């Protein structure tokens, strides 16, 4: 994981100062489909937080839930 974070940090360096030649290919006015509420990764934070808690309490794996994660007193 440390190696991954280090690679991530170093990968960002070329972006600093705008030294990036690739241009965005989906413009703001082309994001009507992406803005539809059904395209949200999770629409309801309290509900997502709860189901993630259920998984974390019943399964050994934890982390990278994507949203509404975090510590819980679920021992």
């Amino acid at each position: 994981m440390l190696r991954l974070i280090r690679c991530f940090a170093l990968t960002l360096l070329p972006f600093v100062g705008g030294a990036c030649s690739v241009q965005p290919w989906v413009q703001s006015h082309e994001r009507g489909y992406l803005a539809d509420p059904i395209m949200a990764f999770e629409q309801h934070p309290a509900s997502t937080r709860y189901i993630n808690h259920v998984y974390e309490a019943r399964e050994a794996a934890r982390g990278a839930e994507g949203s509404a994660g975090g510590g819980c007193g679920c021992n």
Partner: protein
Amino acid sequence: MAVTEFLGRNPLRIFAFALLTLMSLQSVAAVLPEDRADVLYHRYEGGGITIDGPSVLVRKQFKDTVSAWGNYYTDNISGASIDLLSRGSTYYEEHRTEASVGFDYLHDRTVLSLSHTNSSERDYEANSYAFAVSQDFFGDMTTLSLNYSQGNDEVRQNIYENGSIAETIKRGDAKHQRFGLGLTQVLTEKWIMAFNAESVVDEGFLNNPYRSVRYLLPDGGVGNQPEVYPETRNSDAFALRSMYYLPYRAALRLEYRTYFDSWDINADNWEIRYIHPYGDEWTFEIKYRAYSQSQAEFFNDLFPYEDAQNFLARDKEMSAYSDTTFGLGVTYELKQTFFSWIDKSTLNFYWDYMSFDYENFRANTPENTAEYGVGNEPFYQFDANVLRLFLSINY
């Protein structure tokens, strides 16, 4: 090279460097989460136990730069799990309360987030603090986020006499740290993906003080002794999620996560979810999720003798097993005109059916042990129903 040498293997230094680098990126826009309130009833029923209670979440923006939120949540736990049944106990009750507060601050196109959570029950107290920063850049096509949280727990044990709690004693402290990063990328007009990675570092008293392992006695009988876990656990998890807008108005969500930790547990889960609106008022959702894991290296359903190894576990979450979840959800948008300050309100119902199959954890109830013999009981399996019913209001 100089940067690499400076970073070394110090996780906090690496994290701080990544944070500063992220905050220096050129960005176009960032937005705060929308104002909303959720009142939710949750219920989990399976494996002999029932857990239910409310959850209330309120979020409100102030002056377009700050969004504050609070969440109140309770678990009312009752019943008798396989762990209790195997000890001859029949019933158990517990109450847990969790309160969280936090805020998000929008500054120079960066969102900074801080939050605090307290979880309290008679035999467990947990406090955690979380910090996150996220930023949109590359023409709003990319969002990068970093998060760090630290939790400090006090683990206690209730001592029972004649079926009631005589006293509660402290067993130890535990500290948890999480280091996470997220990258969300717009790929096409209809496709967006997210990558998440998170490392968790646990230290201290990590086992459940009530659980024990069983071992064979020289006379062929069975003995019990408390579980002994290592005092550190490090884990890494990586997840990839995709949302795709179908040729008609519906969305397909895919998810895959892989996990491994220093206790030798490897796990994978994947999920497919289909979201389908119907008319202006209804949205339906169907999902299937599968999870599987290998056992912790120090797990054994039946140890050959007492103190057979340094670390001992018979917690079923430390065994090898798999589970599947089939879920249905429905959302109905209420057409109300009573309160002009409400933009949108929805009634939501979600039902998940979970099925667990254990590969090396046996259902050692007294009845099973008498019928099949020690170490020959059937492998444990159970099903669970998980319900979420809630009202959401956007204002």
